[in-house]
Every structure is written in structure tokens, then in C-alpha cells.
């Protein structure tokens, strides 16, 4: 990145602000500057950079981050605030109060939502799923491994509810879902049994099953059988999974930008991000004898497929 481009946002913001001000004056159009409030239990460089990026993206809005601890009860916040929650503690805080502004919940997976909300979805919340959608992951599998038929899936009592949907989605893709319950991850027999009956392993974003402790066993065992793991997230691809779809900050900013343009009344109750990328592990692909994939082109093929299923 050249130094000049780093300056661009600042310059751009100034000019854009000027432009908007001028247009507001000239055309007397009502400029409704929204108050966008982000909150989370902890501040971090990631939070700061996200807040900063969002405010640069929406110069006409007031974008700020406040620590959860410093906020009053949700019902005490102005009702026209657009509230964005960045973590689970902030969701817990939001759930105490049925009153309050319309809220976008980021960084929450289907699994976490089910544990927190138990299938009840308060009307003032919009949940933006952090886990890669199952269908997208299956399409990815289909695209990069066209010969596989049997997709092995490990699950536990928390992720079991996803299986029905998984089977439904797999059917039209011509994939067979082979499932295996894995409650005790220190016992590797279920994993071994599944590897015997599958052509590829698909990881559900279930941190009980896919975590730093299980990563070694999962990846080494499947690799020993020359079997690829797809998913469950970008972090696992770096650890040795073959590929996964994921959405990063830039994708989420684009999605938020769209949503914030709309009135909160039209926000969807739940949403999988339509902006996403594909990450692959070229070294693992090479070792498994799989063609190097062009991540961008795979992502656009997937996106194309989603637009015209």
C-alpha cells in the first residue's frame, strides 16, 4: 500500500463531507444523519479499526463505539439509535430489555443464537450470522472436489439441530451426508469411524468440536487418510483445512452499509452475509493432488450460483 492511499480516506472523507454539505445547502434535501452506536464488553484494536472503518464509510452518520459497561439499559437509549452489538455479553445486555432501539447483532453463530435465544427471536433484533452458511460450504465442496459423494459431518448435542437442514441442502447437490455424534472429543473412535465412511469432512462451526485442542487430531487423522476438511472457518484453513468460505470486515462493512441505508423496519430477522470470500490452503491442496484454486473466481462462481440457484 502506498502512503498516498492511506491518506485517501481522510481526504476522501473531507471532500465527501464538503460535497454533502454543499448538496444539502444547495438542494435543501433533508439529510437524516443516523446515530450508530456500536457496543461490546471489550475494546480492542479490532473493534477500533472496525468502528473507524464504518465511520469512514458513513461520513454522514455519527458512528461511535461505547463500552457495554458505560451504557444505560437498552430501553433508555434513544429509539432512533441504530444499535450494533459486537459480542455475546452485549446481546445478553440487550435481551434484558424488550424496549429500545432496533439492533443489529454481529459476530453470532447459529449455534450461539440457539443456545442464547432458544429459537425465540425478539422482533427488535436482526441476527447477522457469523458462521459460513451450510449450503455455501457444500457448494464449495462440490466445486473443488467434484468427485466426492459422501460428506462426513461431526456433531454434538449443540450442533445436532443443523443436520436436518444440512441433509435438505445436500440432496439437490447430489451429496450424501454421513453424520457422526462426537460428544467426547478426547475419544477419537467416532472420528475414526466417520473417516472410514466419508470422502470428505465438512466442519460445522461448533467450537466444542473444532477448537485448538481438537485441531491436531482432526487434521492429522483426516490427512492420514488423504481426506480433506472443508471449513469450519478461515482460521482452520490456516491450520490445515483445505478451504472455507468466510466473510471478513470488508464484507461485513458492505453488508452493514446496505442495511444502514434501509429503515430498521425492513431489516431481516436473520441474515447470512451475501458478501464473502474463499480461503484455501494451497500447500494442503498440492499435497492432496488437488488443482490450485483461484479463490476469487471460486467465490464469484459460488456467488453466481446463489443468485441463480
Amino acid at each position, binding site marked *: 500500500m502506498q502512503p498516498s492511499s492511506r491518506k*485517501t480516506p481522510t481526504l476522501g472523507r473531507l471532500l465527501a463531507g464538503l460535497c454533502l454539505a454543499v448538496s444539502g445547502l444547495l438542494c435543501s434535501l433533508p439529510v437524516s444523519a443516523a446515530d450508530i452506536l456500536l457496543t461490546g464488553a471489550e475494546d480492542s484494536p479490532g473493534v477500533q*479499526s472496525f468502528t473507524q472503518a464504518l465511520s469512514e464509510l458513513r461520513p454522514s452518520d455519527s458512528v461511535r463505539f461505547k463500552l457495554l459497561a458505560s451504557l444505560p439499559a437498552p430501553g433508555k437509549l434513544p429509539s432512533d439509535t441504530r444499535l450494533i452489538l459486537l459480542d455475546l455479553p452485549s446481546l445478553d445486555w440487550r435481551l434484558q430489555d424488550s424496549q429500545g432501539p432496533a439492533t443489529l447483532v454481529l459476530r453470532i453463530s447459529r449455534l450461539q443464537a440457539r443456545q442464547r435465544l432458544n429459537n425465540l427471536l425478539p422482533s427488535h433484533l436482526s441476527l447477522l450470522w457469523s458462521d459460513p452458511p451450510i449450503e455455501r460450504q457444500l457448494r464449495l465442496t462440490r466445486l473443488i472436489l467434484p468427485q466426492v459423494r459422501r460428506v462426513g459431518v461431526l456433531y454434538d448435542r449443540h450442533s445436532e439441530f443443523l443436520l436436518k437442514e444440512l441433509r435438505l441442502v445436500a440432496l439437490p447437490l447430489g451429496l450424501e451426508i454421513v453424520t457422526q455424534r462426537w460428544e467426547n472429543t478426547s475419544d477419537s473412535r467416532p472420528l475414526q469411524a466417520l473417516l472410514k465412511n466419508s470422502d470428505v469432512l465438512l466442519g460445522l462451526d461448533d467450537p466444542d468440536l473444532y477448537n485448538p485442542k481438537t485441531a491436531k487430531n482432526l487434521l492429522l487423522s483426516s490427512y492420514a487418510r488423504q481426506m480433506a476438511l472443508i471449513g469450519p472457518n478461515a*482460521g482452520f484453513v490456516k491450520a490445515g483445512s483445505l478451504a472455507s468460505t468466510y466473510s471478513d*470486515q470488508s464484507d461485513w462493512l*458492505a453488508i452493514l452499509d446496505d442495511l444502514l441505508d434501509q429503515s430498521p423496519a425492513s431489516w431481516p430477522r436473520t441474515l447470512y452475509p451475501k458478501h464473502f470470500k474463499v480461503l484455501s490452503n494451497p500447500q494442503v491442496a498440492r499435497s492432496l493432488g488437488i488443482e490450485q484454486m483461484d479463490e476469487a473466481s471460486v467465490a464469484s462462481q459460488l456467488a453466481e450460483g446463489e443468485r441463480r440457484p
Partner: protein
Amino acid sequence: MSFGPPSPRSPLLLALVFSPALLADDLFLDSETLPQVLTATRLKQSPAAVPGSMTVIDSELINASGARDISELLRLVPGMMVGNITGNQPAVNYHGTNASEARRMQVLIDGRSVYRAGLATVDWSDIPVAMEDIERIEVFRGPNTVSYGANALMAVVNIITRNPADSHGTRLKVTQGQRGINDFYASQGTGWDGGDLRLSLSGQQDDGFDSDRTGADYRDSRRLNRFNLAVSQTLNDSQSIDWQLNAKDGTNQRPYTYRPVFSGITAAGNNSDVVAKDYAGSLRWNLDINPEHSLYIQGSAQHWDRQQTWRACDAEVSFSPQLTDLWQLSPNYAERLARNMERYTGPGAPAGSPAERALGNQVLDQWRNGARQTLCGDIDQSARESRYDLELQDTLSLSDSLRLVSGMNYRYDRADSETYFNGTLDDTTWRTFGQLEWRASEHWLLQGGAMFEDSKLTGNSLTPRVAVNYLINPRHGLRAVYSEAIRSPDMFENNVNWSYQVTNLRPSAYGQTSARYFVKTRGPGDLDKERMRSRELGYNGYFAELGLAVDVKLFYDEITGMISEPLRNNQYIASNANNSRFSGTETQLDWRLSNADRLRLTYAYVDAKASNPLDQLQTARNSGSAGWLRNWGRGWNSALFYYGDDALNGYRFERLDTRIAKRIGLGKANLELAGVLQQRLDNQPTTFVDNNYDERRVLYFSAELAF
């Protein structure tokens, strides 16, 4: 507002703002730090990029074959010549050479060589590993001293046991059947935070072959027990240790093969059985310095104990000091006299030098004066061998396309045998090796390396190896390989000092109850290494849409300086005078027709030419195997295998094996019942004339409970 800057929301600007440098702080990428597991140093080449020919016998094949021995599994490897010296002594050679000694193949268990330190053999039946503990067998078909050290001359058999982490739970298995087959296996695997363990106990028994060439009962049964403990422990994110303990104890029957030298001896012993004990321990420390750099240090200790004491009978004159002197003076003369004593009793010693004749006549005098009487005594042919091995191997990924594997190895071998070495003999070997893999482009892969070895007894050597792979695409590759390899003569070939001190003599010999037999054989002590040059052209491909994996190779191998003389206590004069050449082609095909069916075919055409006719004997010009595995559903599985060699040591071998298994779920447990039927399709002995079965068919059953 056409003069304004691009909208801050434009994708271009977004892309500029969220440069990769910012991704480190990306709120939406998993903040949880995952270890990089499949690192550049851990990943292996895809089959099409392997610098040579490889056959992998996976656990599905191992199970489906119903094989009770590792050597039997090797029938699935194209070009592998699997025969039997006796029922408990398999003889396995890649492409061929001598049928009674398989000296030119390296055999490793989890990286530890089980090629015996002193006696240049692999005792297949005594390898302290149960079939049930084997995860897979990788056979590198061709020389590869660069990766596996000297003695990886013709092929390398790498036996990989199941990872303790993959062996949790309890397994109990019993196998019983005809020909005295009676095996058991029991294992227990468990895991704890960061560690796993597997303990297994196993045993094997059978009667071996039924009858020798005369139709008499053949003494070659075996009975053995094994103990194995494998533990792996993660120390932290970058370090782990694996250790193993193995022990095997058993008895291998051997027929009494001593033929009296002197005429008129009718008394004989009835066996030369061996009590064979093998012990091994290894410890390996793995260190991942970073994802691009890892190393391990492995230390192992092994001990082979072969106790072989038997009673033999011959004439008293066998212990004559004069005959012993005569043998030292002229083995040929001594043998001629000894074998024809009666003929020379009248006319006196045969023509020769004055010294030979003088000693010969003294011996004849003794013969006439009663030394023709039969004596029986105990022969102790026991040998104890030990090996200590320390290896450091370093894998460094210099870039995405360049990887260096290098290392050092120190080995200490000791053999202790009164009979073979008149005491103890030892050797130390240092070696250093390096191999570079360079992915020059998407299509070209260049791999080369060399090994330098220096051994106290046989000096030093340098062996290079170079391979070029052209990858048509990641699944299809062509290869050209040139490699050189050496085999050091072992202690036995080079340094044997073979003589028998016979004890418990009855009646006594020349007044002694313990005396030294007149024949004494010494190795030349200056043998050079055998040298092999191998050239190979090959193709490896995987047709993903068909599920078909194919490998074809053409080879031309030459061995020069070959030590071909059989190891016999009868004027053993080893030399590097021989050579041999093997050329031909091999094919292997593994086809997963569907989720239920798997078809596997191997075929080898080998043309052997050797200066010593013995080295051509264990080569079947045409050999191969065919297998069909099917999963019928509802727990039923079947496998059908055909194995054929057109002539191994002159005998045809064709066999059809069928295994039918049914898996029954019993709550959390699984019971598998299986029956194996092996049907010989020919009527010939197996490899040697004394290896005969009464029935061409054998049937055995197994029951395995896992929970």
C-alpha cells in the same frame, strides 16, 4: 457534483482501506489462535509427485486380505517376490536374488530398522508387531539409501503402526483354524489431556507346512507372544514425544538338517529349534520450530536373541586336532578326505602336499583306531545382536517451492555368538544425508540428494539420487529417476569366524566332553559394498471422477560387486565377484468403482540375469495379484484375492483367498465375525521342495470384539 472524489463507498476505496495489513486485527476472523497443524514440513508429496514408485497397503486392504503375516501382505506389492524357506521363515525379495536369503531390502517399523545387525536378514515372523496394530505399510519400490540409509538397496518396507490417538477403546480378537492356526490379539487404548496410549498383547501359533519331500512331518511350526506399548504425549504447542516398547518371545521349530560328514553315522538329533526373543524400545522427540521448520530426534535400542541349541551326531574324528589342522591348511583336501574315509583307509591319504598327506594319514590312523565311532553332542548356534541408533532429521521449507530434508545418524551394532564370531564383534556407522525438493514450476519438480556413510568395518561411501517429475496436472505425473545405492556386507558375510564348540559329548571325544568341530570358516574381512544403479521411468495418475489410481513403471537395475555366496559353514568364500541385472515393468491399479466396490490389480514382468545362477532363482518372470473388495451393506463385507507367481525358485504359486465378514452391533460394542478360505490353485511345493501342505485349502475363522 462531477468534480467530487470517488465516493468513499466505492469498492475500490474499500479495497484500499482494508488492506491485508489490517486483516490481523479483523474483528470477523477467528481471534482464537489455532496451531498450524498441516505445515509445509508435515505435508507429503502427492502420489504423482513422489520421486519413485510407491505402493501403500492401507488398513482396509490389510483387514480384507485376512493375512496373518506381514510377508503375506507384501504379495499385494507389484514385483515383490514372497516365498518361504520354512513355514516360519518367509523369504521376501523385491525383484529377486537368492531365494534362501533376503538381504537387500530395508524394513522399518515406525522408522526403526529391523534388519538384523549381525546376520543380514529380516526375520519376518519375529518382527514384534501384531498385524492388528498396523495402520498401513508403505513400500518404496526401488533403492532409496538417501532417505533410508544403506541396505535400502532394492526396496524399503515401511511399517507404520496405528497412532495411539486412533486406537482408543478395547479390542479383543481370536483367530482359529486348520493347520493349527491359533492367534489372539487384545489391545487397550486410552487418552488423556495431551496424550494417548495403546497397549497390546498378541500371540500367534500354527503348524507351518505339513510334510517334507519324503512325506514325513515337517518340523516348522511356531508359537509366539508379543507385547507392545505405544505412547504419544504433546508437551506444548511445538513439542511432542512418542515412545514405544516392543517385546516378542517365541519358539520357531527347525528341522534337523545336519548331515554327517563321515560315513556310517546313523544316529541323529531330531530338531534345531530356535527360541527367538526380540526387544525394542524407541523414543522420538518432535520439535516444530515454526511452520516452515521442524526436526526430530529419535533414539532406539534393539536386541535380538536367538537361542538355538540342538543335539547332533557324527564320528569322533570330527574333533581330531589333526583334521582341524588339515582343514586350516587345505579345506578342499580335508573335505575330500573326510567325505571318503573308507576309500582311503586302505591306500592311505590321497595325493597332496607332504604336509597334507602327513596329517591325512594321522587322521586315517585315528579312524582305523576307533575314531569312527558315533558321538553326539550339543551344538550351540545362538546369537545375540544389539543395535543402538540415534537419528536427527531436520525438515526445512525454504520457500513455497523449496524444501530441504537433512540429517545425521549414528548407529552401533554388536553381535555376540560363540559359533559365528567366536565371541563379540561390533561396528559403528555414521551417516549424513540431505535431499532437496525443488518445485521449479507448476509442472516440473526436481528432487535430488545424497548420503554419505562411514562404517568402522566397511569404510565409507557416497550415494546420490536424482529424480525429475513432470506433473501434467496435480493428479497425473511422469517421472524419471536415477539412483545409486549400496549395501554394506554384514558382519556375518565379512567377518564370520564360524566354528562349533560341541558340548556334552557322549561318548567323549579324545577324552574330552567338550571339543571343537574340525570345520572352521572365516569371512574374508575385506569385502566391499554391493553397489546398485537403478533407472526408472514411471507414470502415476489419479482419475478422480472414476476413482481410479494407476501407477506404471519401467525399470533397469544393476547390482555389481554382489556377494552371492550362500552363508554356509562349508568353505564359505565370499567375494564381490558377482553381478546381476533386473529389468522389466510393473503396474498397479486401484479402482474404487463405487462406495461399495474396490478393485485392485498388480502385475510385474521381471527379467533377471545374474552371473551366479542362484541369484536368478527368486524371480518370477510374471507375477501379480488381483483383489475385489465389496461392502454388501447390513454389516456384510467380502474380499476375493488372487496371487500368482509363474515360478519362484522353480515352483509355481497360485492362490485364491476369500474373506467374508459380518459386523454385528451390540449396543456400544461391535462384533466382527470373519472366515478366510485360502485355496491353492497349483499342486507345487511353496518355494522349496520341503514345503508341502496335505490339503490345498485352509480355512480359519476370527471373531473380534471392539468397544
